[in-house]
Each structure stands twice: as C-alpha cells, then as structure tokens.
C-alpha cells in the first residue's frame, strides 16, 4: 500500500525575509523584494544568468524551486521521465507586479522582455525550462492558498497516472514582497522526513508562522 501512497517529500517556504526548507531556516536577510531574492540567489549559489532577466514572480519561483529540488535523489537519479513531472501553482495577484512595470515602461517604449512576464504561468515555464519538466501544469488564481483544491487537483493527476512527481503550492508577489510555499509531491515509497500528502499537512506547512 505504501508503494502507491502520495507524499510531500520536501517543502520550501519563502516569506518575511526567511527561507525555510523542511522546517529549518536555511537563509535569512534583512533586504526586501528583489534585493532579498538577489541575496538568496548568491548565498544559495544558484548559477543561472536568466535569473537577471526575470520579473519578481519568476525570480521567486527560481530561488524556491532551486532550494526545493536540491538533493532530491529520486529526481536527480533520473527516476522520472520529463513528462512525469508537473507543476500546479496558484496565487492571488497573478502577474500584477510585471503588469505595472510593463505599463510604466510602455509610456516611453514597450519592452518585449517585460511583456513576456505579464502572465503568472510564465513562472511555471521558467522552472520547467530549467529542470526540463514536460508534465501537466496549471496556474490558478484564488483569494488565498486553497489546500483542498491543490490536494484534489494534484491527487487526480497522480491517480490517473499522468504524473509521478509534482511541484505544487503558492507563489505570489505582494507589494514587491515575495511569498512562496512550494511542495515537492511524489508518488511511491516514503522518503526520510516525508509526510503524507493531505490537506491538513499542506495547511500545516503553509500556515506555520516564521515571523515577520
């Protein structure tokens, strides 16, 4: 039975100047917004020049995904085909930060490089390009993180055999501040430190208070 269970095998929360992986604070910085993400990019040792071209939402996703996917032995061992890993993300503010930037820039000259980020699902594209994910993906807009919906949707994709692994969760930029909670969800045997993929566990990890 365990072989067919679905687990949260890792989780990353990026919020209020902290980055927390699997319950442990791995990075803290006083900077805000883009400066915080830049500091995290350097400290974590990410080497991905495209990062500099991204809007805040995609930068947030790139940093969170990099930390989430480090040391994931099943994925790095090539256990999944590209088509078997997908992404299901959500947020409240869509791509509003990039939308406003594009609008402002357009008063002088429209910027194609800004325009490409005026959709929230671009962050899924950026992460998928980097890690070569080709599985099902979706980006939903909701008032707040809906653990019930996320659980239902991802479970359906996995039970129908469309995915073996999925990055799901919440990724938003509010007043230039990044707010993300990403889960790596995998079907199969439990890994050390993993927890069952349930609505309660999603809510528990998402709502844990890591301070202001």
């Amino acid at each position: 039975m365990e072989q067919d269970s679905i687990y949260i095998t890792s989780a990353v929360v990026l919020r209020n100047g902290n980055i927390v992986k699997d319950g442990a604070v791995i990075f803290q910085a006083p900077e805000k917004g883009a400066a915080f993400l830049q500091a995290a990019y350097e400290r974590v040792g990410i080497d991905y020049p495209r990062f500099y071209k991204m809007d805040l939402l995609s930068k947030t996703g790139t940093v969170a995904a990099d930390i989430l996917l480090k040391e994931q032995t099943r994925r790095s061992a090539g256990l999944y085909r590209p088509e078997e890993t997908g992404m299901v993300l959500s947020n409240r503010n869509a791509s509003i930060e990039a939308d406003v930037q594009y609008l402002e820039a357009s008063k002088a000259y429209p910027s194609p490089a800004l325009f490409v980020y005026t959709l929230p699902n671009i962050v899924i594209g950026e992460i998928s390009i980097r890690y070569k994910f080709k599985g099902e993906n979706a980006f939903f807009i909701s008032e707040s993180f809906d653990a019930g919906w996320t659980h239902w949707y991802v479970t359906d994709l996995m039970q129908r055999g469309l995915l073996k692994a999925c990055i799901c969760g919440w990724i938003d930029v509010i007043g230039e501040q990044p707010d993300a909670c990403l889960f790596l969800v995998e079907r199969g045997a439990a890994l050390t430190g993993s927890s069952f993929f349930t609505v309660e566990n999603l809510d528990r990890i998402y709502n844990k208070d890591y301070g202001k």
Partner: protein
Amino acid sequence: MENKQELIHRLKEQIIKQLKLEDKKPEDIGDHDPLFIEGLGLDSIDALELIVLLQQEYNIKLRSAEEGQDVFRSVDTMADYILEHSA
C-alpha cells in the same frame, strides 16, 4: 561624433543594461563575438530588445526583420549599421 571604438564600448554597456546581462562586463563581450546562440546566447526576445535599443538610443528603425540577422551578428556589425544610418 564618437569614433567606432568609442561607439562599440558604449554599445556593449547599453546591451548589458537593456538585456539585463548583469553577470557580464563590457570587456567580456568581444567586438566580433556572435550575439546569438553560441556567443552571448541571446534569444528572440533579446532580438526585439535590441531593435528597441536602436530606436530608443539612436533613432534608427530596421527596414525589415531579415535585416536584423546581419545587423545583430556582433557588436561590430551593430556599430557599422549605426554609423551608416546616423544622420
């Protein structure tokens, strides 16, 4: 009017700024290095940004998309095009 070498240096600074190549310095870009694929590794969105750069900074509009393939081959070819089309 600045000479070609001065223009090339300014172009490199403008390309870095416009394309957000924050991990590059002007001296990292060779005058004759290909801008796309194997050189700086620019993509199609970057090509559009280079067109905007020409309009914004030099008031030059490309006559056609095909022309861009020759103009944007390197910083050197961009400089030649600007010098040729500047009033």
